[in-house]
């Protein structure tokens, strides 16, 4: 800590500079006095004694300086001097300072904002114990769903995992019996789920094996948010009973506030309680699996063991497990693997913006350096060495960068929460993005780097001067080095901007093409809401829904009403299908399809076009032959045959089988930009046997097509539901337009940000080119005046000035095109319907930049032609 004491002493000295100097002075004078006395004792006269003492002491002033160098502020004092000097200069040229600081604040702020998102989403470790040991298991594909019996067998046979848990998010429960009924989000988990993640419940305990089996006493762990919202943080909640879906659950714990895993859930419930629901080994019930690998075991070893277990299961259960493999993936990759690439592309782009900002500020500094040439010469002439001059100039740059950074952090603070609010749910952990210590360190680092980047070249350049030449006034022709440096800056600015614009252009066009995709349905004027029925009596359920549809249909403004268990872009079931009369496909090779169970008016309400045959009618009942409507993708499985009248079934046994009565248009189920069309078929809700309705209606969408603003009917429709059953929870009220917008939100997000960066870059680059050209013209005023005196026409002058600027701009465009060709390849899978090297985009952007450059040159060029030759020749 010695250096720290020294530093503190220097700081103290800096603050009491005069005191320190006085003390040194007094001490040195006392020394001379004592020597004088000694001399007098040797017999000298007072005068002689003093003179001799003073002489032997030497130059008091330089001695004081020497002493002060040790005792005073030292390097801190130089720094302080430089800072004060720089500060005075910044205040003296407020225009320059404002532009430079704002440019830097924009660049640094944007970088800080994006980095704080990258930090929260990608860099921060997950809030679990030793997260690097956590993996997920997925069947067929990484992140895939796992069948529950397979999970149970895999868990029993594996040896390389400390613990494992099945997780099924997106469960829903009706919470009743304690005030207003509420629809809760739930999560099914295995025993030990919380300890697996290394999370201790805030209150109570984790699930144990005895909770996690069929027939166990139902238990529940509450989320912190739900506990405080509905129970006012009651510390005595553990042991109490709550009612979920008309069943009583014992609260055994409360999760800590910071706990988060996948989808938010108000309640966690042991999956083993309802294991019966998931007993079909061949199904994909949306269960994910998380596991902790034992310390010292690699993911590769664990994967090898898992492969062996799955191979055994394949032999044991060929009907369901043929071709079924399971893949391990790190938890981190599982959650954020998809967003890594777009985020890194954004970070890279915003880095380019900062580079452009640096180029602009460097350009400003270069221009200013030429006006400060005399100041530099005077300082050098007075004895400042080169490193001292460079240090002073760099201090100025750092000061600018730090002020810019301070402003930038404010910008980022606001920008980060703005961005986070744009898409809270589509990017995991985005909501946690904030400016933390790591972000501040990052900002400090980039601002110092920035200061060095834009300051170094001008500083080196300014300090390298020829004294005699510089002190001569009227030296207007700037040196070749400075000219070259400035040209280089313009070229790189144009090239960087082109790269950003091309990236943004490609994303914007992809986005437009996604929006142009025909989803197969009509999203306009369509109100959707979900209801969940908890009634064991199928007859009552059927009566409820038919009455509800009838009542809503009578509301003014309603054109059609329907119900469905699935919804395009939201949810659907995904079973296999078999065509009657065809040989059974090999196990594992059965074609899959998306199944919707809908009421007859669904096609009318959704605006799905009927291509052939008919849709369901009131004549289809549980007592008539089962009907199915298929989409055009499923129809293709019949090749050239007419599918109408053929039969399909959902199970290999072939029963029950359904008559195909109609073919409708395919709808986009997962994304508007999905690459292949998964076949779809529709079953008639009215033909479902009453005993199966309780299982089917846990989540039903009520669709209302209107000819007025759909949300204006919300309360009327809710009123009809409440009139039939006042305890019926209604949730997720949205228009179909909102659902479509939400499905493209991540794409819109990266497109918008990149577009904003590109526009900022374009603005900065045009300012840069304009500034450069104005300066060049101002410097050549004399030359231009001379040319005009000698008979040059306006056109010649315009050509001269514009030609110079455009040469640079076009060089920048050429470099930028090459760089973009290399860089846009990294964003290939963010694009839709457009090639990463789309020639039209490249040509258009190049043309746009060239035009902007032309304008930026033209204005100063015009000014040059207005020069009065007489004034110009006198111009000094």
């Amino acid at each position, binding site marked *: 800590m*010695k250096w720290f004491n020294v530093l503190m002493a220097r700081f103290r000295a800096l603050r009491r500079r005069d005191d320190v100097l006085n003390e040194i002075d007094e001490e040195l004078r006392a020394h001379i006095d004592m020597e004088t006395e000694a001399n007098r004792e040797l017999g000298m006269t007072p005068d002689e004694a003093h003179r001799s003492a003073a002489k032997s002491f030497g130059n008091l002033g330089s*001695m004081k300086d*020497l*002493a002060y160098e*040790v*005792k005073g502020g030292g390097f801190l004092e130089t720094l302080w001097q430089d800072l004060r000097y720089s500060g005075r200069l910044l205040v003296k040229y407020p225009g320059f300072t404002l532009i430079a600081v704002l440019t830097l604040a924009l660049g640094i702020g944007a970088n800080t904002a994006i980095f704080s998102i990258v930090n929260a989403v990608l860099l921060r470790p997950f809030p679990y114990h030793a997260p690097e040991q956590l993996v997920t298991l997925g069947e067929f594909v990484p992140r895939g769903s796992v069948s529950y019996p397979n999970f149970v067998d895999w868990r029993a046979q594996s040896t390389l995992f400390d613990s494992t848990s099945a997780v099924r998010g997106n469960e829903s429960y009706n919470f009743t019996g304690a005030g207003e009924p509420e629809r809760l989000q739930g999560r099914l988990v295995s025993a030990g789920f919380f300890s697996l993640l290394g999370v201790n419940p805030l209150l109570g305990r984790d699930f144990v094996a005895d909770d996690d089996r069929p027939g166990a006493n139902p238990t529940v762990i509450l989320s912190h948010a739900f506990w405080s919202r509905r129970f006012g943080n009651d510390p005595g909640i553990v042991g109490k009973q709550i009612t979920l879906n008309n069943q009583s659950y014992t609260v055994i714990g409360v999760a800590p506030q910071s706990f988060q895993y996948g989808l938010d859930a108000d309640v966690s419930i042991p999956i083993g309680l309802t294991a019966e629901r998931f007993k079909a080994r061949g199904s994909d019930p949306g269960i994910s699996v998380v596991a902790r690998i034992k310390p010292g075991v690699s993911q590769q070893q664990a994967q090898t063991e898992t492969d062996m277990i799955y191979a055994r299961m394949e032999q044991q259960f060929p009907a369901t497990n043929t071709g079924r493999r399971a893949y391990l993936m790190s938890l981190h990759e599982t959650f954020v693997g998809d967003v890594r690439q777009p985020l890194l592309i954004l970070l890279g782009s915003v880095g380019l913006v900062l580079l452009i900002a640096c180029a602009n500020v460097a350009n400003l500094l270069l221009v200013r350096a030429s006006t400060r040439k005399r100041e530099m010469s005077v300082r050098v002439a007075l004895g400042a060495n080169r490193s001292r001059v460079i240090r002073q100039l760099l201090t100025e740059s750092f000061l600018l960068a730090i002020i810019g950074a301070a402003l930038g952090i404010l910008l980022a603070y606001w920008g980060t929460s703005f961005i986070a609010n744009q898409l809270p749910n589509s990017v995991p952990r985005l909501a946690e993005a904030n400016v933390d210590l790591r972000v501040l360190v990052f900002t400090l680092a980039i601002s110092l780097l920035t200061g060095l980047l834009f300051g170094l070249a001008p500083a080196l350049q300014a300090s390298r001067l020829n004294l005699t030449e510089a002190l001569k006034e009227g030296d207007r022709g700037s040196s070749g080095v400075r000219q070259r440096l400035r040209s280089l800056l313009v070229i790189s600015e144009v090239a960087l901007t082109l790269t950003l614009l091309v990236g943004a252009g490609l994303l914007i066009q992809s986005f437009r093409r996604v929006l142009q995709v025909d989803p197969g349905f009509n999203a306009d004027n369509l109100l959707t809401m979900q209801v969940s029925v908890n009634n064991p009596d199928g007859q009552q359920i059927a009566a409820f829904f038919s009455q509800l549809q009838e009542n809503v249909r009578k509301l003014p403004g309603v054109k059609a009403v329907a119900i469905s268990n699935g919804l395009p872009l939201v949810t659907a079931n995904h079973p296999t299908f078999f065509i009657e009369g065809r040989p059974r496909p090999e196990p594992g090779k059965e074609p899959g399809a998306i199944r919707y169970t809908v009421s007859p008016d669904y096609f009318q309400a959704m605006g799905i076009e009927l291509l052939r045959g008919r849709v369901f009618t009131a004549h289809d009942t549980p007592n008539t032959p089962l009907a199915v409507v298929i989409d055009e993708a499923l129809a293709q499985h019949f090749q050239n045959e007419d599918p109408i009248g053929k039969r399909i079934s959902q199970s290999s046994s072939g029963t029950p089988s359904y008559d195909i009565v109609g073919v409708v248009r395919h709808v986009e189920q997962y994304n508007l930009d999905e690459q292949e069309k998964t076949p779809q078929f529709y079953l008639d809700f009215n033909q479902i046997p009453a005993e199966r309705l309780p299982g089917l209606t846990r989540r039903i969408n009520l669709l209302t097509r209107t000819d007025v603003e759909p949300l204006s009917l919300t309360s009327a429709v809710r009123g009809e539901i409440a009139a039939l059953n006042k305890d019926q929870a209604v949730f997720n009220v949205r228009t179909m337009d909102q659902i479509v917008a939400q499905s493209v939100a991540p794409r819109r997000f990266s497109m918008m940000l990149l577009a904003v960066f590109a526009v900022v870059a374009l603005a900065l680059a045009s300012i840069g080119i304009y500034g450069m050209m104005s300066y060049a013209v101002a410097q050549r005023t004399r030359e231009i005046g001379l040319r005009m005196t000698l008979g040059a026409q306006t056109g010649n002058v315009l050509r001269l000035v514009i030609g110079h600027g455009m040469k640079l701009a076009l060089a920048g465009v050429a470099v930028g095109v090459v760089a973009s060709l290399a860089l846009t390849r990294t964003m290939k899978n963010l694009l839709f319907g457009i090639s990463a090297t789309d020639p039209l985009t490249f040509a258009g952007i190049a043309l746009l930049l060239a035009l902007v450059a032309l304008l930026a040159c033209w204005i100063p060029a015009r000014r040059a032609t207005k020069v009065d030759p007489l004034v110009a020749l006198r111009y000094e």
Partner: protein
Amino acid sequence: MTNTKADLLQGTLDMLILKALSLGPLHGYGVIQRIRRMSDEMLTVEQGALYPALYRIELKGWVSAKWGNNETGRRAKFYKLTRAGQKQLRIEEESWDRLALVVAKMREAT
């Protein structure tokens, strides 16, 4: 820096000052006199070297400074060896001795 024209290394000067102060607190003028007496008039430290060295040593915490009065009642700044300074003096003396021993051995060897 000294009238013996020997190029006294800074560390050596530090050691001389510490040694002089080890006999008791003293002001700058006295340090010069004491070094001269202790070296049998062979060493004279110049003021221009003394004060920067004193300040450096003070920053390092080897001596502490306090204003006081000298034998004739004049106000002067007195320097006093601290505990850290005593330790430093021992270290420097030891290394100096070692060096002297090595040099002596080398000379005997030739």
